[in-house]
């Protein structure tokens, strides 16, 4: 059943007319043309499709698009502001916290959510918070380091 669904996407109002059961992931990637959000498993098992919904990380492959009506969605494309990378993006680039880069958008947004609920996480809290985001290239150590540094950086900016 097609319906009109309106929400805020990367600070802009958008609306789509589509079957509300469809996963947010595919509406973002196809209808809305934002391809930074990736498919890795389709079953909430890998985190490649992570986006931020009202400030919290969610797995867009299992979120029916009708659920985002009236909500705020942030995707990787919306993280850098005015051409300036977000501190988490900076830190990922600086620490080589990526290889193939396919898990990277999901990693960054999951870290974003982690740091907004816990701005000064311990190393163990970072590990626990990131555990279910998969990276096949083995960038884990770098990712942890990048998140640690981003946390520092963001603390300084507050």
């Amino acid at each position, binding site marked *: 059943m097609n319906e009109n669904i309106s929400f805020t996407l990367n600070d802009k109002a958008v609306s789509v007319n589509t079957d509300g059961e*469809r996963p947010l992931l595919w509406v973002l990637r196809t209808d809305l043309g934002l391809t930074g959000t990736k498919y890795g498993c389709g079953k909430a098992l890998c985190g490649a499709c992570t986006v931020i919904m009202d400030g919290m990380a969610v797995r867009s492959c299992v979120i029916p698009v009708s659920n985002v009506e009236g909500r705020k969605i942030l995707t990787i494309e919306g993280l850098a502001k005015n051409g300036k990378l977000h501190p988490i993006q900076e830190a990922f680039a600086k620490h080589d916290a990526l290889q*193939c880069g396919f898990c990277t958008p999901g990693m960054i947004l999951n870290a974003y959510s982690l740091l907004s609920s816990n701005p000064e996480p311990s190393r163990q809290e970072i590990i626990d918070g990131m555990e279910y985001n998969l990276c096949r290239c083995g960038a884990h*150590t770098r990712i942890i380091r990048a998140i640690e540094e981003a946390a520092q950086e963001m603390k300084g900016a507050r």
Partner: protein
Amino acid sequence: MNEDKLQVAERGRDESQYPVSRREFLQGLGGGVVILFAVGDPPATGQGRGGQRPDFNAYLHIGEDGRVTCFTGKVELGQGPMTSLAQTLADELDVSLDSVDMVMADTARCPFDAGTWGSTTTPQFGPILRAAGAEARAVLIGLAAVRLKVPKDRLAVKDGVVFDKTQESRKVTYAQLTKGKKIERHLESAPKIKTVGQYNLIGKPINRLDAVQKVTGRAKYAGDIRLDGMVYAKVLRPPSHGAKLKSLDASAVDGQEGFQVVRDGDLVAVLHKYPDLAEQALSKLKVDYDIPEPRFDDKTVFDYFIKNAGNGRVNGKPAGNLDTGARLAKEVVEQTYLNGYVAHAPMEPHTAVAHFEGNKLTVWASTQTPFGCQRQLTSDLGMPSENVRVIAPFVGGGFGGKINYDQAIQVVKIAKIAKKPVQLAWSRADEFFYDTHRPAAAVKIKSGVDASGKIVLWDYSIYGMGGRGASLFYDVPHNRVTIYQRHHLLKTGAWRAPDNNTNSFARESHIDLMAARAGIDPLDFRLRNIKDEKFQRVLKAGADKFGWTPAKKSPSGRGYGMACGFDVGVPVVLFAEVKVNERSGAIQVKRVVCAQDLGLVINPEGVTLQVEGCITMGLGYALTEEVNFAGGVVRDENFDTYELPGFSWVPEIESVLIDADDEPSKGAGEPAIICMGGVLVNAVYDATGARLRQIPMTPERVKQALAKRA
């Protein structure tokens, strides 16, 4: 090179003497300096664009704006060749890194390349690229000498500016020198390249050139290609390998608004403008298959292999006489080691887009072998090769699995019937099914040690895979490696350092077993039995870093293990510390030290990254990863049953590189992974006294081994 010769090169070029492809490659480059070069054996004959391979397989161009572009068929899969090649080139040319552009993996713009795999990019490509850079620099210096009226030996270059060393204001930029020129050179003899002390960039850690694109989501992978009128295809995955499609009733889907069903033989696909809807519709197809009887499954596979081994063939050069070896041995130890199938499981499943326009076809594919793919399509379709273009954009991990490009073959068949651009991305379940798995294998070893702790007998039999990593680097006078027939029901293929993971696991488990029986410390035992000096250095450096000390008893309870390996010319040694939870059977790896000799290291940061990648990926095959199957049916469909290493698994990782700047560079993408099975098995033994003969060491298997412990 004197100015006269340059002038000849400029004027005397006769386009018609070149093969079609060379002319094509050079068209549209505009002015500037072009250096053509071949890597490895020059690809002078055989198939390629226009039925002819060019006599070079990479080139670099310095444009009239001074920008340097390197055209290569290599693919950026995550291991960073885009960065390391640019770094190499910038250094040799004395230009800044950001003035180098890399054009990669596009069959229409880059000359032939066999594929990106097996740690070959840095060792084979690096030196030639450096030579090409040096040649280009020499040409430019030659031009500058004429322009500035200064002898060449008084000139130096920095950041693309040539200047007189005695009067720095006398200078000219590369851009000014190339302006209005068209110079083409073929790299024949290697010019002088920089030596260790002269590098500016080589050997320095630098950040990846693709980092910003990747952290902003702008990096384009095959699945991110959007074309007008493009639809998404989802393929109907057969229930089993070897299954034959008996009947198909697509009426519930085909012709429904927005849907189309396409069939080409056993290949069936649903098309829709949204991939999720295409996928959903697959379940509405009514299909019937003939499925072959399963001959074995993940439990019985090893028995099957050994019972149906046929006559083996001896691998490599056997030495001495096994009977003599057995007579010299104080004790003969025999053991069989088992290792299952594993999946490549890159985070990006195989994806491709096919676009026919008139008589031309363009394919974007996540593949490690764009040229192989192009050749295959050319012959399948009977199209002239210049009309088939394959591009591998950023690829989301390959590990050997994307040497295979079945998804591209499928999408082209589908697009041809559908008559519109089509994108096909395999689902995760498709990926587990169609992937070429690392073969399961059994290794039987019969060995003996004499009274002095010297290995005197080594009789090594392989069932299910090949012999990479099986030739012995231990010094054993009587030794033989035999490879037996393979029987696989799943597709198998190269997986990061093919065969070597299983061979190293078996060998190093067995070496440890012998050391324990002989009552000799595992490090000491290895040092006594490996003569090679390089290897000895690596062993000692690693042991030093790890802080290895001989234990009073074996097992020591400390949970220390070590393992050696040899891959793509690189001696590698791993040391590890583990903790085993005897109640749950869970293994936590605390620390891993990796020592290796990689020759000259171009980008140490890149190497460390690769080592971390190898060790993390290695945790998977050592601890959990194993494909569940019965006959041709693959039971794993996603990451719930097929478990990849997560953040909490990752140990402290330290990498030691032996200083060898005067030796050629070797690839770092594989060696570090090969010892992970062996080192962890040995560490678990040291922690608990239980020696596992089969990996992955799942909690079940650990508990069984603990229960069997004497």
